């Protein structure tokens, strides 16, 4: 769309991207796409969490939540995940400042923090199985593992995504112009973090009130 034509008609608040393609909202398509995806993903987690809550307290055999859940341990891993969101913000800020060294450092740090969280989860799962909580053993096991497992898969995908960005930044040097691609990964990461806050509250903390 040419500039001349824009001046002859009311065009609202639109904006053209680098292809000269007109964008009605000025936002990049990919960013809108991520928001739409996250809106949908809320329903995925909402349904899993709903299933968990509907079946809460209906297990006929143990182990029950209070037998296995370890609040101090999971608090540590939750804190690590929370901090990774903070580091994510630093990574995006560094990229926008065109400070590529720090952008790589912080992006790697987010992936590292995420991996620590996943490590805690793997440890927790093994420990729980040792204590007799299995996928097939009772309803708590079924709903707990599928809910937290789905979240874990989200974290794992986020880690792979961030590491891919890190590697790609060496293959094709990134600049501040590429910030939207990191921002979108960041949106995803913050969302996964947010979901964990809800899971930690509903599944872990509520049991001990």
């Amino acid at each position, binding site marked *: 769309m040419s500039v001349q034509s824009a001046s002859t008609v009311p065009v609202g608040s639109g904006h053209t991207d680098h292809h*000269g393609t007109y964008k*009605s909202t000025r936002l990049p398509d990919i960013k809108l796409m991520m928001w739409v995806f996250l809106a949908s993903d809320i329903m995925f987690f909402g349904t899993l969490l709903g299933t968990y809550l509907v079946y809460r307290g209906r297990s006929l055999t143990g182990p029950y939540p209070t037998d296995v859940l370890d609040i101090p341990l999971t608090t540590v891993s939750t804190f690590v995940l929370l901090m990774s969101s903070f580091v994510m913000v630093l990574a995006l800020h560094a990229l926008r400042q065109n400070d590529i060294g720090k952008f790589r450092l912080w992006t790697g740090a987010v992936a590292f923090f995420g991996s620590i969280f996943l490590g805690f989860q793997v440890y927790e799962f093994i420990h729980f199985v040792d204590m007799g909580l299995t996928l097939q053993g*009772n309803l708590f096991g079924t709903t707990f593992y599928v809910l937290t497992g789905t979240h874990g898969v989200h974290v794992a995908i986020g880690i792979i995504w961030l590491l891919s960005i890190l590697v790609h930044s060496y293959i094709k040097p990134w600049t501040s112009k590429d910030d939207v691609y990191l921002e979108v990964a960041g949106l995803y990461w913050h969302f996964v973090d947010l979901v964990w806050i809800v899971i930690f509250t509903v599944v872990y903390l509520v049991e001990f009130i």
Partner: protein
Amino acid sequence: MAIGKLGAPPAVGQSPDTLLTRPTWTEGLLSWLTTVDHKRLGILYIVTSFVFMAAASFEAFLIRLQLAAPGNTLLSPDVYNQMFTMHGVTMVFLAIMPLGIGFANYFVPLQIGARDLAFPRLNAFGYWVYLVGGVFLYTSFFLGDPPDVGWVAYAPLTSLSNNPGLGTDFYMVGLFVGGIGTLVTAMNLIVTIVNMRAPGMSMMRVPVFTWMMLITSFLIIFAFPPLTVALFQVMMDRTFGTLFYVPEAGAMAILWQHLFWIFGHPEVYIIILPAFGVISEVIPTFSRKPLFGYPVIILSGIFIGFMGFAVWTHHMFTTGLGPVVNTAFALTSMVIGIPTGIKVFNWLGTIWGGHVRFTTSMLYAVAFLITFTVGGITGIMLAVPPFTAQAHDTYFVVAHFHFVMGGGALLAFLAGLYYWFPKLTGKLLDERLGKAAFWFAVPGFWVIFFPQHFLGLMGMPRRTQTYVEGIGLELWNMVSTIGTFIMLVGLVLLLINIIHGFVRGKPAGDDPWDARTLEWATSSPPPFYNFARQPVVNDRDALWVQKYPESVHGERVPEEASEPYDRHGAHIPGQSWYPLLVALALLPFSYGWLYDNMWVVGLSMVVVTFGVYAWALEGVGGRHIHFDDRRDPQGADEGEQA
């Protein structure tokens, strides 16, 4: 450079890290396999959904033959169960819903003056996943047994102990995989409609079909996740022995019903809202009047979208949820009738006082209005819990939802087919043959389904393989079966008309109906770049205002303000193998899950991962074309990164 040569430029924009050569075919099978063009994908969607509709119609035909007479033994009870299950699943998931999405694929970018969807390769992926899911489901006829649990697949009928065959797994895995395609396409449509409207096209100037697709897409992204999770839970139950729907372990089978209908009721609107959109295009065009009450139609659509999530338990009135729940959902179910009624009156108001042309398309639209209203009225009846207590799971319900799905959505889409066929092919369908087909198909439909109201009120249960003689069900069952033959004649004539139209239809011209929206501003069929000039929109009914400015503004607007010349050219996205590759990798994934072979599942996930990386690294690609003159674009290559 001429348009014909443009498709095969000597060198192609290709980033060095591409693993497969970037495809550039413009003709033949390979060009269709690698296409990212929304118009080609739209045609693929429409053709595929008609093929599945033919299969589902055949299943329905067998059902009606079986029920023609009491004590009939044409289909055994097992086969009968498979037939009504596959008929329902196919019609809902593989025929009517993809038909709406197919029209959206083709016409949403054209209506908003865009050159493609926001993510063309993702759009191709959506189609291929739909095809993979559908083909997978239909291979169940050759690999053991098709699903036989009804299209709602209630737990615990679907548990491994109650249903050890592969049929239920086909249902769960097939819909799980197919749903991924629907989800990504809906997300793609939302971004496209929100972000790619032509300059000047504010939301309240967006054509109604596109508006309804926006609402539909939002319904899809919120309604499909609950279904996907529910399917996944049953898959886990059957493959890994989890306890989601095992009552012996304390689980509640009714959870499935809740999750299914939290999806299932919005699904009804996912099917019908695009149909409302089609009707809102057809009726103004053939009444030569602007749509009466455009803002009200849009707001009613949004209201239906919201309320669609607040009525799901009216499918569960007989499950004993208690009087408070039943009353609340009875009220919301009746409230949702209001915006639907408003729309019907708006369409009537559009026809009122117009210069009505009764083309075949308009005939279907009018038939839609009458048939859908009848279905809506029985819907209000079924929203009353005491009535549902009597009519639940009887043929009354069957008649009701066939009136809204078949008489509503399908008739509207047939109106859309006759309306848009000239744009799709550049050729006109034969009006005389079309009207002949109409006068078989629509009365045939009524003869099939109207007597089913009576059967239901007499107490004939749905999903019953046969009935005994002498309880008064013979007459209306026979009438209903005779109706299938009448409708069949209509559908065969429709098919002949479509083939005839393709082969020797009269040239349509760009705008055969003197229509109102932007898809008619370009040639028929549109060139691959859609518009040589970026359309600029000054008003609702953008094309109408361009054609007849004096009828809207009272005076001619200056030429340069209506459609400026596009000096920047257009970016045409490159074709790609990866959407097809990733979608095809979901086929071994599905069979692996079906036969509990996690190695195959894992391996196909490796292929998916490879495909996703190659997809991302390949980038959008494509080329930039310049328009020196309206009909003479110049090709220029352009290598780009994502």
